[in-house]
């Protein structure tokens, strides 16, 4: 059918009060060669698609396409996150456990198919919020069945109108294309170049801000919750920026009572007290294998970090970072100190930098450390010339490499 023929034809509108009436009118008009532009009805009139010879909608294809997209996205998301980006074995199942992915795949397929086909409907049918509705005929959403037609060029519109009235139409009228009247509506206006400029402004503002802001790209700038991934981490042996003095471990508050149930020590910090401890205290533990082992365990945990595993200051903090130089425990100066003095230093701290560890190491363990230290010193002492029968590098009793 040559559509140009209708371009300037007269348009008519006719309202009917039943679906049967409008259906008959549409069939009759089309049989006579007039063009039915559209019908406007309160509910879908069945048979109208055939009468108007509308093609079946292709929206099912859109639905299928969006569904397949959802399926592909779901499979990709699950396989990539579970097997590649964060491979975590759960319940001994394979990383890409396809049967376990079926439910989420199904849900996302349905979600995208449903939302996609509805969005397609909105686009194809031009459904969007409108304050001026095009082709809105009075009563078409209530009880009127309205048709809009274009009269075949050469026939008299008044004859057609009379014929429509004969078929039961009420309110037959010339149809003015209100699209012309609507041209000044803001919502209907065609977007000119200005609109692109307007849209470009926020984008330019964001880009400008990004360029101007002095960003440190080593850190994440977007954080949902200031989570653990973005925190500043401290290197070992760094000074604490939080606690006074830069130390991480703080001494307990004054007057703190130990929970080990032992009587008070009866000594305070200071050089005089240390000397007094050296005079008055004896190591209550015998050098048995068990005490030795415990002493070694505690020494290697608490002391070796600074004093070195063998008491010779061979510890990274001394040899590499050169933070300080502790007393060399196997030196003669320390060897000559009595047990009680060493116990006091372990408890209250040394004459120089060493911090007291009485709050960290139990009293008995401190004595056992002293016991172990004595063995270290024996092992390190320059050996007197030995009889040739003795093995050349016999370790101290009980000491192990």
């Amino acid at each position: 059918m040559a559509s140009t023929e209708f371009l300037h034809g007269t348009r008519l509108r006719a309202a009917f009060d039943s679906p049967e009436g409008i259906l008959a009118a549409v069939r009759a008009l089309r049989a006579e060669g007039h063009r039915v532009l559209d019908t406007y009805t309160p509910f879908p009139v069945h048979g109208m698609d055939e009468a108007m010879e509308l093609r079946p909608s292709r929206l099912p294809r859109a639905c299928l396409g969006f569904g397949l997209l959802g399926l592909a996205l779901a499979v990709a998301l699950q396989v990539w996150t579970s097997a590649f980006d964060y491979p975590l074995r759960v319940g001994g199942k394979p990383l890409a456990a396809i049967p376990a992915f079926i439910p989420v795949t199904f849900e996302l397929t349905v979600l995208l198919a449903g939302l996609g086909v509805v969005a397609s409907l909105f686009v194809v049918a031009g459904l969007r919020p409108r304050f001026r509705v095009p082709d809105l005929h009075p009563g078409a959403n209530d009880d009127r069945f309205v048709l809009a037609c274009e009269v075949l060029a050469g026939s008299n519109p008044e004859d057609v109108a009379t014929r429509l009235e004969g078929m039961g139409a009420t309110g037959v009228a010339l149809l003015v294309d209100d699209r012309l009247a609507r041209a000044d509506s803001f919502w209907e206006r065609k977007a000119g170049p200005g609109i692109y400029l307007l849209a470009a402004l926020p984008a330019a503002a964001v880009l400008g801000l990004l360029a101007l802001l002095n960003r440190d790209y080593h850190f994440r700038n977007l954080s949902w919750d200031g989570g653990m991934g973005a925190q500043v981490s401290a290197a070992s042996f760094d000074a604490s920026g939080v606690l006074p003095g830069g130390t991480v471990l703080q001494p307990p508050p004054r007057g703190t009572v130990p929970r080990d149930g032992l009587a008070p020590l009866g000594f305070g910090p200071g050089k005089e007290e240390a000397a007094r401890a050296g005079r008055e205290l004896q190591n209550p533990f015998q050098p048995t294998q068990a005490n030795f082992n415990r002493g070694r365990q505690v020494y290697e945990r608490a002391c070796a970090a600074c004093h070195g595993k063998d008491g010779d200051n061979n510890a990274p903090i001394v040899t590499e970072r050169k933070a300080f130089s502790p007393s060399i425990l196997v030196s003669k100066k320390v060897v000559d100190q009595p047990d009680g003095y060493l116990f006091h230093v372990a408890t209250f701290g040394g004459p120089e930098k060493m911090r007291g560890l009485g709050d960290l190491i139990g009293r008995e363990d401190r004595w056992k450390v002293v016991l172990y230290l004595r063995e270290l010193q024996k092992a390190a002492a320059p050996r007197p010339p030995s009889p040739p029968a003795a093995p050349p590098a016999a370790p101290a009793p009980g000491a192990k490499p």
Partner: protein
Amino acid sequence: MAPEGTAHALPGALEPGVDPHYGHVLPLIDGNKSYAQVTEEVFSTTERRPPLRWWLAFAAAFAMLLLGVWAVSQTIRLGIGTWGLNRTVGWAFDITNFVFWVGIGHAGTLISAILFLFRQQWRTSINRAAEAMTIFAVMCAATFPIIHMGRPWLAFWPLPYPNDRGPLWVNFKSPLLWDVFAISTYFTISLTFWYIGLVPDLATMRDRARTRVRKAVFSILSLGWNGSNRTWSRYETVYMLLAGLSTPLVVSVHTIVSMDFATSVIPGWHATIFPPYFVVGAVFSGFAMVLTLMIIARKVMGLEDYITARHLEAMTKVIIATGMIVGMAYATEFFIAWYSGNPFEKYVFLNRALGPYQWAYWSMVACNVLSPQFFWFKKVRTTPWMIFVLSIFVNIGMWFERFVIIVTSLHRDYLPSSWALYRPTFIEVATFIGSFGLFFTCFLVFTRLLPVIAASEVKGVLKHGQH
């Protein structure tokens, strides 16, 4: 949108001697109305001020909602310790209520989608309200797992988005995560389906609007709808597609909910019968809730001509069918427990029927298996107050079913030293009451703001049986 070429709602033709006032030959809508009359009756309720009885109902519902808000705020402020859960029974009231509400929602989708595909035209009067019920029920359901998380402000963590925790991705092999996807997809698609169904009616509201605000609001919502046949043609295609998508979706949702239980190794949960058993139970409870709501709504809003005795009767038939399937499932569970030879399984089921929660078990059996049997009588099927009473029993029974499945399976499983009892605290009961408050508040607001009857669909079946 009645699909064309439809058969009558119920099969069979008018035979000589058949009671002409009974069965399919009655028109779907009573009162021999005109199209304009339907428009006036459906939409005028949204344009008037609500009557006193609406305000009374709203006040009651809102008071319940406030109680629930208080209970939830206590839970969030003080933690899950305000609930009666313990190490043994870690799921109880909360998950019971979750499954209960999700199940309620399923009838809405069933009516809007499955009955549409089966061309059951009687659905047109009730589908709008039933779909609204779905949406509000899913909202109630989602509340419970979210507050059970303990830190509900982190409830977005189950979503797989690129995060700054690693990125730490979610475990797609977990049924609890499947639940997140199932419920959120279900909610989204139900809302979309509901909205799509509303668009033609929203256009009528726009055309009828007298105030500027109403005009503006409904202009936005009705998307420039003008009733064009070209649009109707596409719209019906999309509506059919959405119905086709929703039908497997609704089955998948309760299947996945049942997998929360069935994929565990707890005796009483670890059963392959769970997916169909849960889906049928959901339809059963959902139809009971639709009946409860519709019987109230038709009375309060004067919609007896639209929601006729015939609609109620059709729904009671669904209730009796699904109720018997549910009863069959109860029997099958016992049979399999015995037939499996698994002593733990056997114990759980004996404990259900004879143990400390036997009162819950037998309440469930009485409400779900025995009470629907009254629907064999036509007198009961066509008397609204009797249907109402029985629908309440089914609601109660289906709540107990979920309670029985969850609590009796957990409270005594493999290790007798871990056996414990559960009893809800006041906070939990108040939260449950609050969920009813949320549901009824939303529903009551809906009945005043939007057309409860899908007018454009009802007009399509108005002359049903007259030509």
